């Protein structure tokens, strides 16, 4: 290995995880050079052989599980005699827990869904643990996912498909996604069907968490009809006027709103101050709202696609197209 970090990076990019592991075991210097690359991307696709993948996932779960249990143990000990600890725990970085050491290097992780599958409790797992941390109640998959997220301050989420209408998304899982994942998402494909005002609030909260969002693809069906709008709400909305700082592309694939007030959409348009590209699929009943939104809140809009998105062709009436385009100020491409 060379002493120049950029060159090490170039070399490490050429190596697979297995080769990197071998290099990490050469000596301390090589270990230090290789570790950031070894832990950079965590996914389980680099080998097509299925058995290997299963084994790797189990092994990864063991690493996270042990780390979790070790931290629990340390916390308990810490409460008992906190001052002693600082002397007895060695100065060497090798005594730190695995994720404390390597978590900050992690840049990509599997999707929350895959992590949950990967971390599902397994029958034999605790037996193969190293330390005296056996004989304890195993944490749930979600607790392990949260533990992992807490130790990865720099991971990125280039793309997240998220559907809240699927059954296996519990409220706790959603909370975890909101807390750790949404603020890092660059591209979000969101499918959701709010059935009442509080579910709509939840949706707004979720979208507000997406502070680094660049591209937003929406399939939203607001399916309740009763109108619970009150004056308070309107005031609140005027107070907070956040704009997504990085959002460049907004795509409304299939969006419907049966509610009378249709409060969600103006709320959405107000956040689109930096949007440059707009894609419109099916937006029954929202055409006028969108046309107003484009005019009032999307000054940077320069590229509009109507009707056809990728391989799907959506029906937009001529009248709808006319409304959307006539209200706009610029010459559209």
């Amino acid at each position, binding site marked *: 290995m060379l002493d120049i970090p950029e*060159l090490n990076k170039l070399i490490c990019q050429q*190596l697979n*995880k297995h080769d990197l592991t*071998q290099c990490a075991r050469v000596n301390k210097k090589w270990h230090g050079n290789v570790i950031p690359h070894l832990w950079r991307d965590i996914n389980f696709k680099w080998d097509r052989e299925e058995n290997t993948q299963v084994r790797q996932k189990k092994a990864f779960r063991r*690493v996270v599980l042990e780390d979790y249990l070790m931290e629990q143990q340390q916390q308990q000990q810490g409460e008992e005699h906190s001052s002693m600890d600082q002397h007895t725990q060695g100065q060497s970085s*090798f005594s730190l827990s695995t994720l404390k050491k390597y978590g900050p290097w992690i840049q990509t992780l599997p999707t929350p869904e895959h992590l949950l599958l990967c971390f599902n409790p397994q029958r034999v797992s605790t037996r193969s643990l190293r330390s005296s941390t056996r004989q304890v109640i195993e944490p749930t998959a979600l607790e392990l996912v949260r533990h992992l997220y807490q130790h990865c301050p720099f991971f990125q989420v280039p793309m997240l498909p998220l559907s809240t209408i699927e059954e296996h998304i519990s409220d706790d899982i959603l909370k975890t996604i909101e807390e750790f994942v949404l603020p890092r998402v660059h591209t979000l494909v969101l499918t959701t069907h709010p059935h009442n005002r509080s579910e709509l609030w939840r949706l707004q909260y979720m979208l507000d968490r997406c502070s680094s969002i660049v591209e937003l693809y929406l399939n939203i069906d607001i399916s309740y009809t009763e109108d619970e709008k009150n004056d308070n709400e309107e005031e609140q909305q005027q107070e907070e006027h956040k704009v997504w700082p990085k959002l460049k592309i907004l795509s409304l694939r299939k969006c419907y709103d049966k509610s009378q007030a249709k409060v969600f959409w103006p709320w959405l348009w107000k956040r689109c101050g930096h949007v440059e590209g707009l894609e419109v699929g099916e937006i029954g009943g929202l055409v006028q709202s969108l046309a107003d939104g484009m005019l009032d809140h999307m000054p940077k809009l320069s590229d509009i696609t109507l009707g056809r998105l990728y391989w799907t062709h959506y029906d937009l009436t001529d009248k709808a197209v006319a409304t959307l385009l006539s209200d706009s100020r610029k010459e559209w491409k």
Partner: protein
Amino acid sequence: MKVTLESSDGQVFTVDKEVAELSVIIKEMLVIEQANQDHPIPLLNVGAVELAKVIEYCEHHRNDPTIDDDEDYDSRKKPIEMDDWDKQFTIVNKEMMFELILAANSMQVKPLLHLGCRYAADIVKRMSPTEIRDLFQIDDDFTPEEQDKIEWEKQWTKL
């Protein structure tokens, strides 16, 4: 147009400007010192042997399209292309190749740098830690406990 380059040990090489410009550093220097090209460009970190080799490489690749973005070299996206000439070119001992990597780095000859790094990566591929230690004559400074711990931490990468 010709450009003259001077190695760290004082040897002077004359090459075509477009050949020398494969080095980002030289290209930038030529822009700055447009008027003053009478004296050779000094390359303080590059010896004559390595410089001759770098020039040989640049001569062969003078007409290649330039790739500016380092990310394009990321092998996970796109493997680095090596033609027969490159393969022939890289048949040198590893000390020479590491010197070449350093030279390519200090002159910023990007394609050669990436070729060299690929070569370096190929050396350690599929080698055990012991083999690597023997090859590079380095000592194992891990305690058995530390080796143990590393083994444990890396289990999820095992093929």
